[in-house]
């Protein structure tokens, strides 16, 4: 009963979305791995300038580039996901690579990562913090508790989903999500900001 059946030899198949498996990359290249992505963006902006599409088309990509590459999340921890949130800033995942630096004061933040269960007791404080953040601002509901109450959604004290309190831009499922999943959520948010029409 409950014995371990012999695991089959593990073969990692090619994975959709996982990208090609990178061999050990030399120092110079790995630092540039994402810088290459900026070339098309710069081209786009230049094309817009050449086509005289107007100031709007030119400036918005620049500011959106700035906005999406320097997201300062609010430094607070609600529950379990906060530990994974901290782990994402740890050495192994290092969210600062993307310019994500947690700040303790809501005035300096543009991203609120709701990383845990929101109770009714903390709800109005969450709303206050959200309102203290200056525009433009985004909210990520990290984990199932923030998404919809999670395992505690039947409880008397738990808000079943932070989207009942503040508008949510990205939901990250997981209980708690791995740090990679959190980074994936931030990258998705970057994609949202890139396509933003102010």
């Amino acid at each position, binding site marked *: 009963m409950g014995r371990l059946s012999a695991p089959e030899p593990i073969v990692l198949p090619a994975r959709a979305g996982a990208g090609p498996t990178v061999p050990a990359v030399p120092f110079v290249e790995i*630092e*540039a*791995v*994402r*810088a290459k992505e*900026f070339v098309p963006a710069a081209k786009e902006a230049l094309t817009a300038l050449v086509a005289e599409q107007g100031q709007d088309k030119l400036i918005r990509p*620049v*500011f959106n*580039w*700035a*906005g999406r*590459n*320097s997201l300062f999340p609010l430094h607070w921890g609600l529950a379990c996901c906060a530990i994974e949130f901290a782990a994402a800033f*740890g*050495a*192994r995942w*290092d969210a*600062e*690579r*993307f*310019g994500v630096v947690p*700040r*303790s*004061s809501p*005035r*300096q*933040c*543009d991203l609120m990562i709701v990383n845990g269960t929101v109770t009714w007791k903390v709800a109005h404080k969450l709303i206050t913090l959200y309102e*203290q*953040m*200056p*525009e*433009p601002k985004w909210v990520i509901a990290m984990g199932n508790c923030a998404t919809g109450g999670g395992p505690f959604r039947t409880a008397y004290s738990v808000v079943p989903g932070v989207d009942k309190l503040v508008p949510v831009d990205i939901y990250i499922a997981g209980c708690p999500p791995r740090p990679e999943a959190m980074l994936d959520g931030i990258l998705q948010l970057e994609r949202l900001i890139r396509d933003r029409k102010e």
Partner: protein
Amino acid sequence: MSSATLYSVSFALVHDVLFALGRAVGGPVGAALRNSGLITGLALLVFAGILLIASLLNTIVLIWYERKLLGRFMDRRGAMHVGYAGLLQNFADGLKLFRKNTVRPREADGLGFYFGPTAYVVTSIVIFGVLPISSGWNAGALPLTLLLALTIFSFAPLFIFVSAWSSNNKYSLMGGLRSAAQMIAYEVPLLLAVVAVVVVAGSFDLTTIVYEQQNYWFWGPLVVALIVFVAAMLAEMERIPFDLPEAEAELVEGWNTEYGGMLFAFFMLADYLRALVGSILVVLLFLGGWTLPTWVPSAATSFPLAGILWFMVKTYIVFGLFVWVRASLPRVRTDQLLRVGWNRMIPLALLSVFLAAALVTVRCVPVFGCVPSLGG
């Protein structure tokens, strides 16, 4: 370039351009263009612009440098995805903060709330006007550049306290008070350590002080003064282990808790400007400025802008030391900080002054200079 000051270069540039223009245009407009007042004004503007851009660019690179360095100390990579190796990260940060709304709390004092950070950043930039970066690369031959630089440097607690008080937040207020107390306490040993240098160099002019170090750098004979100066400078720059005013663990963000957007960017900018000034002062006062030890082959110093290059290299190495300290030491407490400041630092600084005076009196400075310093 060594004979000309930065101002004279910009003056000559503006002069030549305007005269050529004036000749080409002719008539009363041309004559007006050759007006000396206009040339002087424009030359000042160009000079100020060069200074501004140079200091801001350097600060931004400095932030990047710190982030990358800290990353390696912490076994991680630091900003790396914005631009090559994250070089554009701080431009993104700056642009984003520029676009952010600036929220002023309703109860905050409007004048102080905006005046504090602006004056803080302006005074921090102004210091660069008097700092020689290479021989002649400063505003000109003022006899008291060191005093002027330190005077402007010590305006900061006033503006920090104004911005902290006017933002009407308890954490800000405590941070501002701590900041004022700390900066005033460490102002004294800082100046006393500088006095030691001045006694040995015999001048208040930074350029002269550097030239006095042609034969030996001052860190060898004045090592006590160097230690006091670096420690006091860490406190003045509000960096770990003396970053109590921004102590994140107890005072949320210290005196800039209520600031966001561009005003917060001003604070960050001014902090790093001051860090840059601190590193530059260490290099100028103790590490021989843009000069290299005499045993270095002359090829290393003969190419154009070599002085600036070596100066920047030294500055960044000194700043790297500050980052190293930040990566490995915890924060001290206010009372300990003040006790260390008043009870340890000031006697040490006085000792260093005494030592410097003794050195000058017995004229044995060169002997000391030969033994431990690189610049023998």
